[in-house]
């Protein structure tokens, strides 16, 4: 059984391709037939539900260690400054202050490429100046107030367009454009494409900076035991944190343990090790006590990531009969003060069939917090613009926007020139259009009578989310026939604990209650990648199936030995192995386990290789129905119909929840969320949850979800594609198009706030 080999594995993760060697399973298993499945695909309740509703779930935020000290960070109040002098004497004298780190006494650890853990050149409001540990947070906070810093205030720039100008204040010696030039993609002949077009649409669309604002703040609790460092961290990637921390502290990876059991959300903001974690580890070693650091909401809004903004100049051409001939994108976005990706052209490159495409994208440094991946980085911005352009083109040639999209459907990935393993987007279009009542939308746009105008809009969606190796899972059989799965993945609120337990329960035919799942601990778990890129379920669930199938094989072989029969005479059913034919002899899993002793019964499953020569993508469409109050400018989203091809559904209950979440975040991005920086002072005005507007329960639309896929056996033994990011991608675009359909005016920049609606109506 346990066949494996080592391959070069390459797949898309968040913003780029990962490529690494991976040991993969070579085991082949029969396709799961949906009808025969007993646990997988069923609406099983979350296995960690009890912990989460009872208050007993211990998040990193809640970890309390004996003698634990509490830390706070002094952050730069200016958008751009240099530290001339820093004096911590007074702060140190406060009773209860245990230690202070600044660039003067901390090791020089390189961070963000050209910067440092503590850098006296401060490039944004919120940049780290000093780190204090004290008996409690309040004392640490007082100490921050008594640290004296002389700042040399520098000229700043907080707008990407301004920062691109020659005479703009520079964040780095070599200028504000990352890499000094745009990143360019080209296929076909763009000029020829526009010559062939009988209609051309050209438009500039803008999207704003969005802040992740997970409810649990970024936080760590660190504890040294001699040279052994344990970190409880609110992270999406325990191994990524371990490796980074071990590297910068020059510790063997084996001496760093990172644990994450429960985490209060992340959405991409917790994929990397935080500076605060390393600072806490440095200070904990110095003061000889465990240290807890939890960021406050202001810091969350300044310093730990955001979705970069975008200005996208798009141009598209189509023939009269609705064939796209050319697509062009010129765009720029702000990475913030340090390197990050602000690209958003994958939507335009991959969504529709188009032979002539060119994109030029600039990533620009400004004096503001650095961007990080945020639920479908680039795609959420890119789709808002692309789908608006597609609607405009459809209108120009007088074609139904849905029909226009269907006309430009492609079964091949055009960037890599490969067929998709599966693509059921046409089915998704059909069921969703029917469910929303696409035929009954106001035509022409803006023709709905009355001050409350109704409108319907749509957006397609593509994402990677096929995951891939390496991903491993260990399965241990206990003496009583219960099992434990151990994997270095993490459940970030999506239900990973539950779906992995379902897979093991399905294969071994034992009740869910007999399966325990341990995730997020680098000391005991085999490697899995970070939980991002919608890769967790598609990468890890096949490894668990592999581990469970191997265990089943072991049990069969154990039973054969004990019963003195050949394995071919045995049948495995409901956790019992019995012989075929008359005179049935049987053994339960529990009996075999007791006979073998639990030391023997460990298997490690591996994610198999992705199929060669294919592109793996998830697809979907959302239709939004909105109501626009033409007197106040307020947009209400009434209904979203979401139809997806995401391979196999492991758990419809957690899946629905995840799709709801993506849609509601998309709605927030479409209508109210925005980081606002005051141009005159360079300071962020939206640093709390009152000024930064998140959707509330009252903003929740009716949501209708249709899954058109059953499972993609070309990808893996579970046939799963990820859904976390696909859920959010089309929402803002669909809402934007619905608003146009309602009022007949296009709002070209997000968020679609009442003032923009009223201004558009008056134009």
């Amino acid at each position, binding site marked *: 059984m346990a066949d494996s080999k080592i391959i070069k594995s390459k797949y898309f993760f968040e913003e780029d391709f990962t490529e690494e060697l991976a040991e993969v399973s070579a085991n082949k298993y029969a396709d799961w037939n949906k009808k025969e499945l007993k646990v997988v695909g069923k609406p099983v*309740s*979350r296995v*960690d*539900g*009890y*912990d*989460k*509703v*009872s*208050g*007993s*779930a*211990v*998040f990193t*935020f*809640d970890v*309390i260690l004996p003698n634990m000290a509490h830390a706070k960070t002094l952050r730069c109040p200016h958008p751009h400054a240099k530290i001339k002098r820093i004096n911590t004497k007074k702060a140190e004298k*406060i009773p*209860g202050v245990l230690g202070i780190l600044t660039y003067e006494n901390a090791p020089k650890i390189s961070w963000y490429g050209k910067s440092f853990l503590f850098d006296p050149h401060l490039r944004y409001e919120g940049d780290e100046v000093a780190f204090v540990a004290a008996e*409690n947070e*309040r*004392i640490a906070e*007082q100490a921050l*107030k*008594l640290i004296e810093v002389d700042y040399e205030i520098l000229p700043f720039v907080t707008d990407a367009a301004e920062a691109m100008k020659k005479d703009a204040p520079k964040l780095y010696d070599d200028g504000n454009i990352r890499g000094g030039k745009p990143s360019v993609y080209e296929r076909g002949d763009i000029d020829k494409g526009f010559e062939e077009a009988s209609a051309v649409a050209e438009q500039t669309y803008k999207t704003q900076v969005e802040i992740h*604002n*997970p*409810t*649990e*703040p970024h936080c760590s609790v660190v504890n040294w035991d001699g040279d052994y460092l344990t970190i409880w961290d609110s992270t999406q990637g325990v191994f990524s944190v371990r490796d980074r921390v071990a590297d910068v502290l020059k510790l063997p990876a084996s001496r760093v343990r990172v644990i994450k059991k*429960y*985490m*209060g*959300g992340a*959405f991409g903001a917790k994929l990397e090790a935080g500076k605060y974690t390393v600072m806490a580890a440095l200070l904990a070693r110095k003061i000889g006590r465990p240290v807890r650091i939890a960021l*406050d*909401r202001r810091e969350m809004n300044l310093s730990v990531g955001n979705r970069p903004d975008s200005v996208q100049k798009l141009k598209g051409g189509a023939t009269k009969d609705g064939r796209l001939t050319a697509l062009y994108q010129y765009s720029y976005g702000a990475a913030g003060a340090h390197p990050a990706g602000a690209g958003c052209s994958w939507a335009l490159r991959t969504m529709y069939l188009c032979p002539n495409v060119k994109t030029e994208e600039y990533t620009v440094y400004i004096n503001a917090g650095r961007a990080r991946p945020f639920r479908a980085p680039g795609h959420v911005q890119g789709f808002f613009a692309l789908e608006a352009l597609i609607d405009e083109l459809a209108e120009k040639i007088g074609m139904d926007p849905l029909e226009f999209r269907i006309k430009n459907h492609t079964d091949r990935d055009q960037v890599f020139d490969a067929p998709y393993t599966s693509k059921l987007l046409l089915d998704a279009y059909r069921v969703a259009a029917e469910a929303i009542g696409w035929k009954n939308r106001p035509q022409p746009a803006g023709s709905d009578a009355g001050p409350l105008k109704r409108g319907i809009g749509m957006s397609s969606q593509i994402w990677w989310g096929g995951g891939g190796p390496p991903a491993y899972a260990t399965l241990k059989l206990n003496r009583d026939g219960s099992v434990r799965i151990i994997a270095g993945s993490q459940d*970030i*609120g*999506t*239900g990973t604990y539950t779906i992995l337990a379902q897979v093991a329960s399905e294969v071994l035919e034992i009740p869910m209650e007999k399966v325990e799942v341990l995730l997020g601990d680098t000391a005991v778990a085999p490697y899995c990648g970070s939980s991002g890129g919608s890769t967790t379920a598609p990468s890890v669930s096949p490894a668990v199936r592999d581990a469970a199938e191997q265990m089943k094989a072991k049990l069969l072989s154990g039973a054969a030995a004990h019963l003195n029969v050949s394995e071919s005479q045995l049948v495995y059913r409901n956790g019992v192995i019995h012989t075929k034919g008359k005179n049935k002899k049987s053994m339960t899993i529990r009996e075999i386990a007791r006979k073998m002793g639990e030391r023997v019964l460990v298997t490690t499953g591996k994610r198999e290789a992705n199929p060669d020569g294919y592109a793996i993508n998830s697809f979907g469409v959302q239709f939004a129905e909105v109501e626009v109050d033409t007197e106040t400018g307020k947009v209400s989203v009434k209904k979203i119909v979401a139809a997806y091809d995401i391979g196999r559904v492991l758990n419809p*209950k957690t899946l*629905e*929840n*995840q799709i*709801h*979440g*993506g849609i*509601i*975040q998309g709605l927030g991005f479409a209508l109210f969320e925005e980081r606002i920086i005051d141009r005159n002072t360079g300071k962020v005005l939206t640093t*709390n*949850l*009152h000024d930064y507007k*998140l*959707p*509330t*329960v*009252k903003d*929740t639309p009716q*949501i209708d979800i249709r899954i058109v896929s059953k499972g993609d056996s070309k990808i893996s033994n579970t046939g799963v594609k990820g859904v976390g990011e696909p859920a959010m991608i089309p929402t803002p675009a669909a809402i934007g198009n619905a608003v146009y359909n309602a009022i007949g005016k296009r709002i070209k920049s997000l968020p679609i706030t009442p003032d923009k609606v009223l201004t558009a109506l008056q134009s």
Partner: protein
Amino acid sequence: MKKKSVSSSLSRRQFLKGFGSGVAGSVALNKIASALPLQKTLEKAANDANRTPLNLSVNGKTYRLSVEPNRTLAEVIREDLQLTGTKVVCNHGECGACTVLLDGEAVYSCHILALDAEGKSVTTIEGLLGGEELHPLQKAFVKKDGIQCGFCTPGQIMAAQALLLKNPRPAKEDVLEGMSGNLCRCGAYPKIIESVLEAAKTD
């Protein structure tokens, strides 16, 4: 967003604002506030000498504590009583994560001073349990999956409990109103609504 009624007349923000000018609303605070400039006051308030005795009744148990007067109910619940089920997300009365019941009313515990809870009965998420047994409302949240990451969940459940105590058979609109002071960044709202309606059905 609807702000919860805070039964105390004194919110923490007002407290901090009023600190230097001596307008804060409780005796213990006035004493400190009038005597010292802000920085010194903050320092002293955090030190042991300034502790005030407090009898706090939480989940049916009375704790004899001694707390600094500037500490919030949320801090005392989480740090002194180590009941970490109650979460702090914004610490500014904006999100509802820290919601507990004060004499049956939902309050933001980050937004009320611990001293102002004296003489009242506080219920936290842990207090809903009957031993190990989940409260029907908690069960409904599991059954209907009114959870994603779970960090806002204790606050959501306490807000729902306050709503159901007042209105055991809420209509959907009542649920939207009653739960509108609790943010869920994961966007589990549709299933939170279902969970509350389910609890109302089974209670």
